[in-house]
């Protein structure tokens, strides 16, 4: 499958950035190969999934306000079918990490992510969630949400304007649309090794909570 076959309404795929990464992702998925019938079913399922991404706003700071602005009248997240903001992680498909993640919040971010049902996606919105942003040198800030959970799309900005957020969500839709429900699963990227290895002892930190016992 070619990346140009992934259609998004009103935005031709040539105008999208970062087509190479998506193409590499498709190739990786295609490595196992599937037959045509399943492919069609996959397309239908992906169409459903991509257009019904119910977000969970993990909003910690400024970016959360821009997320709210995006959901309000001027920008209207509802046009993408995404206005059904679920506050319960169990019912959400997409976690929008909007804001700084600090040491104290880290375990909770991970826990909320673990509570979500598959298929689940994560969008890192804003500089803080991508890399720690303005607070990258601070003692209490985790430099990027991807140290704790896998991130599918990075939306830069501080905070990104709602159009930027929409562009990021469209990118995510493209990613959802190339995945396979039958045959092989979506590729879950490994967690950043920093978090899973205790820097003191060199051992892997075992996450213990009531959800994975």
């Amino acid at each position, binding site marked *: 499958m070619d990346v140009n076959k992934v259609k998004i*309404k009103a935005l031709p795929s040539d105008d999208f950035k970062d087509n190479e990464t998506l193409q590499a992702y498709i190739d990786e998925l295609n490595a196992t190969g599937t037959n045509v019938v399943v492919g069609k079913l996959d397309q*239908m*399922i992906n*169409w*459903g*999934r*991509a*257009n*019904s991404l119910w977000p969970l706003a993990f909003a910690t700071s400024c970016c959360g306000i821009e997320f709210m602005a995006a959901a*309000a*009248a001027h920008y*209207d997240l*509802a*046009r*993408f*079918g995404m*206005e*059904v903001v*679920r*506050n*319960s992680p*169990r*019912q959400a*498909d997409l976690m929008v990490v909007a804001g700084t993640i600090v040491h104290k919040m880290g375990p909770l971010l991970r826990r909320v992510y673990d*509570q979500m*049902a*598959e*298929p689940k996606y994560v969008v890192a919105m804003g500089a803080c969630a991508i890399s720690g942003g303005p607070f990258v040198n601070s003692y209490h800030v985790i430099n990027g949400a991807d140290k704790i959970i896998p991130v599918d799309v990075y939306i830069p900005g501080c905070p990104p304007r709602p159009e930027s957020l929409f562009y990021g969500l469209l990118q995510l839709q493209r990613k959802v649309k190339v995945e396979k*429900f039958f045959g092989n699963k979506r590729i879950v990227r490994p967690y950043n090794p920093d978090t899973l290895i205790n820097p003191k002892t060199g051992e892997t930190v075992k996450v213990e909570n*009531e*959800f994975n*016992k």
Partner: protein
Amino acid sequence: MKQPLELTGLISNLHTFFRSNLTPFWATVIEGALVLIAVLAAYAIIALALIYIERKITAFFQSRLGPNRLGKYGWIQSVADLIKILIKEIIHINKVDKVLFYAAPFFVIVSSVLTFGIIPFGQGLQAVDFNIGIVYILAVSSIGIIGVLLAGWSSNNKYSMIGAMRSGAQFISYELSAGFALMTVVVLSGTMQVSEIVESQRYAWNVFNGHIPAMIAFVIYLISGHAETNRGPFDLPEAEGELTAGYHTEYSGLQFGFFYLAEYLNMFIIAAIATTVFLGGWMPIQVQGWDGFNQVMWYIPSYVWFFAKTGVLIFFSLWVRWSFPRLRIDLLLNLEWKYLLPINLVNIIVMVVVVLLGWTLEDLFPIFRP
């Protein structure tokens, strides 16, 4: 009267076809299966349509556009939601009360399907028609609350628990008002059978026939109906602000889908019952003696009448929902016990008096008598 678009002919043809070609047992089985399929299909389609309509109308009230990227005006948006939710993972949670946890969504959905069965969608389009139809409605619709309570109790989650307890208090209170409001109509039309209630409203809808007390009963039924189904501004059990998602916080995937569907369907059911008992159901607008006019009205099939009237009520419900803030639990109970219930009790007596003294529209003006 000519009724070219009605389905009554088709149904009776099918009925005679099965009866003449099969043994009575198999005829009943097949007819039953067909009715079940038809009801479930209608259930699913109406739910999808309602989800779309609600999202769109909500958006318009909020000066937004709502879903508009899937199909023209986004009309297949809820199909995408359906596909997504069907294959979404169902999380199995360790520390829940397993049996109750898995049973709860079924209670909710079964309750609303059963109530759905008694709604007369049009002439002859009614799955069951008891002679105690109103009692059936009241009985069956209260099964849903068991589902909500079980969901809240079994989830082992404090938010769910509070949501469920609120729901219980709310439902029990408003069930009284809803019941009394319907009883007011029973007093007026003298029957509990749904088809007869519709038939009795041929020339004067109940809401006009019983004038003042009927109108009060109508308003009270709408209020308490929405309170019963946990629709805004009475959506305390799932008050997003404080309880994240209320009683269904721990449900995911299709189980959550059941709650979600049932919520929308309950809104429809309340509107449909209100239409049936107060607004003449599927009966077209008719005036005694104006045969030409009546004929024209009958050309519009009865199910269109039904859905049009129901649609108006649903629109009104959405309008209210998106205009008002949420009530607090004590205000909610105040409203019921201090206002609705006393008014309702007085109202039913007034209705009895009106009927006994022959002050209904039908009695006063023979032109409205069927």
